């Protein structure tokens, strides 16, 4: 087992080298003036004329060769200096550490509903194949597939924060306001008496005994979590249903039934566990996807996570940030896949890791 893990982790630097070199090579397609757009953000900043632009190009080393630029980045990255993020206005590492907890919190709250509803309704639909409950989940699934997250997000935001907050007394300190915390709560969280143990606001609020902040943070999570959950579990529900249907047709399920095992136990112990394998595989991708940031959901709800930052960085050609996030996602992808592979062995005893 350990050898297997070590072997998998050995691939990490090779993959990292590959993806970063590809990115650097792609950047060479842009000339230094195009890349300068990161530092000169709009026409109103063209004040110093070409002379100033040339100074900036020289200052930021944009005319250096691919090898020099890549070498400089690798050298710094080894020392955990991923450079300066123009989009975050701080170092890439600080930018990451500032935003990752928000993304992690969102992921932790979203992953449960996504997988729980997908598995529960998928099993339910398969067991009641072609009956009304199956048809209902089909409708819900199609809606989930069809609704772009920006539409669902905006509808939820307008419905709850826009309409209900004007007509109903506040719930959770408001009707699911955008952002991560309300203004009053931010002041407390930013104060000296509040200890940020984990930087997950809900957890820290509980650890500090601040229930009002906990409810406020929870209220701010409801709509983004609902959006992410609904958009994602539609797909997982379909996969779970198909997998369950296939499993229910297996001989060992028939055998269990013929042996007189109670139907509830047949489903729970014999069918559902085996049907979970594809979900486990895909949940790895789900975790990577959520932890890498969810651009649209974060943007609509003003949620300060990695997704909106990554999108902004890519649009503005903020190479340092893109490379830093790429490194993170690559590591995450490899580690999560490794964990998924290890989980196979736990779920399915036939799988042997060698």
């Amino acid at each position, binding site marked *: 087992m350990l050898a297997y893990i070590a072997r998998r982790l050995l691939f990490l630097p090779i993959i990292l080298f590959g993806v970063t070199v590809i990115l650097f090579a792609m950047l060479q397609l842009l*000339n230094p*003036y*195009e*890349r*300068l*757009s990161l*530092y*000169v*953000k709009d*026409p*109103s*900043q*063209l*004040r*110093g*004329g*070409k*002379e*100033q*632009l040339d*100074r*900036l190009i020289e*200052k930021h080393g944009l005319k250096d060769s691919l090898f020099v630029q890549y070498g400089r980045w690798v050298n710094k990255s080894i020392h955990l200096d991923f450079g*300066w993020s123009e989009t*975050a*206005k*701080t*170092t890439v590492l*600080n*930018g990451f550490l*500032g*935003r990752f907890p*928000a993304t992690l919190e969102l992921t932790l709250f979203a992953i449960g509903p996504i997988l729980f509803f997908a598995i529960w309704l998928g099993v339910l639909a398969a067991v009641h194949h*072609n*009956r*009304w409950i199956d*048809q*209902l989940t089909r*409708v819900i699934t199609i*809606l989930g597939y069809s609704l772009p997250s920006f539409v669902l997000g*905006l*509808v939820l*935001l*307008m*419905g709850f*924060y*826009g*309409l209900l*907050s*004007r007509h109903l007394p506040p719930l959770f300190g408001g009707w699911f*306001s*955008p952002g991560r915390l309300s*203004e009053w709560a931010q002041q407390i969280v*930013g104060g000296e008496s509040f200890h940020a143990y984990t930087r997950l606001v809900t957890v820290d609020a509980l650890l500090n005994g601040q229930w009002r902040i906990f409810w406020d943070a929870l209220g701010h999570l409801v709509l983004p979590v609902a959006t992410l959950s609904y958009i994602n579990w539609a797909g997982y529900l379909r996969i779970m249903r198909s997998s369950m249907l296939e499993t229910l047709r297996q001989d060992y399920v028939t055998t269990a039934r013929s042996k007189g095992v109670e139907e509830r136990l047949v489903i729970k112990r014999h069918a559902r566990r085996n049907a979970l394998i594809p979900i486990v595989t895909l949940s790895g991708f789900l975790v990577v996807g959520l932890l890498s940031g969810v651009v649209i959901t974060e*943007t*609509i*709800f*003003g949620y*300060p996570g990695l997704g*909106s930052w990554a999108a902004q960085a890519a649009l503005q050609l903020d190479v340092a940030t893109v490379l830093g996030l790429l490194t993170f996602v690559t590591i995450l992808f490899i580690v999560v896949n490794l964990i998924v592979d290890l989980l196979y062995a736990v779920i399915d005893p036939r799988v042997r890791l060698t």
Partner: protein
Amino acid sequence: MSDKIWIVVLALVALVIGLLVLKPAAPPTTPEQPTPVEKPAQPPVEKPKEPEPETPKPIEQPKSPQQPSQPLTGPIKNPDTLIVADLSDIDTLDPHFAYDTSSGEIAFHVYDNLIMYDGPSTEKFLPMLATQVPSLDNGLIAENADGSVVIRFPLRQGVKFHNGNSFTAEDVAYSFHRVMLMDRSGGPSWLVLSPLLNVNTIADLAKQIEAQRTGKKADEIDFNAVSAETLVATCEQVEQAVRVVGNDVEFHLPKPFPPFMAIVAQSASWASIIDQQWATEQGAWDGSCNTWKAHYDPQKENDPIYAKMNGTGPFMLEKWDHATGDISLIRNDNYWRGPAKLARIVIKKVNEFSTRKLMLQNGDADIATINRKFVDQVDGTPGVRLIKGQLRMSLSFILFNQKITAEGNQYIGSGQLDGQGIPPDFFSDIDVRKGFNDAFDWETLIREAIKNEAEKARGPIPRGVQFFNSENPVYQLDLKKAEEHFKQAWGGQVWKTGFKLTAPYLVDDQASKTAFEILKRNLQRLNPKFELETVNLEWSALLSRSVDGTLPVYSAAWLEDYHDAHNWVFPIMHSQGNYATSMNLGTNYDALINQGINELNPEKRQEIYYELQKLAYEDAIAIFTDQPLGRHYQQRWVDGYYFNPIWPARNFYPLSKRLDAKPNMEYVNQLGLVVQEW
């Protein structure tokens, strides 16, 4: 069968829920209709005397019945805190590094200048950290026999920085020395270097000194290789330009520079006074001539006060959250002009328009930035006040490149006057430029793309700037005249063979797109052989093309650095100005522009700038399209708002939140604005 019934029932339920959620807010009832608080006064100063079709359009009149607004009923959300939902992207908190309006807005509230503009006035100065505004009359401005000028600022005593340190004359000198010696690339230092030392960069000054010492040519000298003695001598020249004399500070200008007071009064960035002791403690330049080079042109991350502030202004920095982009300021209770009414200012970065709109609607934002394309969705929001018609010190224009780079240029077709392209010097023919001007339709542009919230520009100097000529001739749509000019252009060849060119514009720049579409349509109407294609470019590509000289025409805008006609004619018409350089305008106007900046007599200056405006028209150097009018959306409970177009952004110092807040009618009437509230 029963399953299908269930499906139908559930689908209907889902539909009803969906419709309920999506149901738009009830239309405002009569009392909530937009209600003009006051009829706009006559358009302000310098209104053209003869109303011609091209004269500034009167500000749109609200059409709703005049009824009093519903009185506000409480409670006010966050009564001591002003929350601004903005698109701001603050670049730095170091005022001497900053050169953007978002950073300037913060510096404006944390730091003070020596002098400031008097409320919304764009002409009158008031003392700030100085006790008097220098003038020839009060003897604080003196002209020497050699033509140099000394400007003396007596300083206020007893003022404290936020950390408790006393404000001194040394802090003023240090601040100006620092901004000059720091000279970060792409930064604002040239604005101070130019009038005080007659150079655009500190490196240029060092090279000049090194050249004098070594006998080499200045442009052959590598700044990074100049001697230590030269570096010290450079710094000493900077120190000589701004000197402490007792409790006063003197600025020594080698020659007259009329806009100098405007540069010192510009309420952000380069003229901000910082605390020398504090800055040195943070690791910034210590004021020594032996160490300045180590602090020259720093990377942002190496600037010790990049994210720290300590000024004498009405607000202190509380927190700059890099994760959210939000910034919060708290009141300076010891402010020498008296503490602000609001305890806290929070500027939230909210990129999504819908979210900003909902925050404004729900009272979670007191002020919100609303882009012009979205205003229809915000107008009518209950509890909101709109102030519109604010003249901005900005000008949009379409420039003609008179010497286009032909190599690898995809925008000029064949590069020949053969109907399939244009030659690189196509726009050097005045009849081509006049033809383009005569074929342009300002009215359509301002109506369709700018929603009537702009005035037609009359030349390179906008209204509101001294020496703007409200009677300067302007072009107007006249296809007959255009035809005449095109028939004369290039000896008649243009009309005979036609031309083809591509006009690139910045993606999402709706106004530029519409302007080029108007030209395209009218040119086609004139002659089917006239082809103008449009293409949108990402900013990175447009930046690159503007540098390599391949743009045949360039839709641009200028936002002034300081409030003077020179800051308009120089970038647009001087051979070394940003736009004139990239459009290869030549040196025709340089002498006159140089004469204007060295002339102290206002009457003579007026003659010069009137002449330059006339020449810009006669030579048709560009299509001067429009000068925008701004909008301000706020909660009705925000009291005390007014705006000065010279400020980098809003001024939070006079604001408060109260249920009986009223618009500042003196300001509204003075500037001819329109107020609507719902």
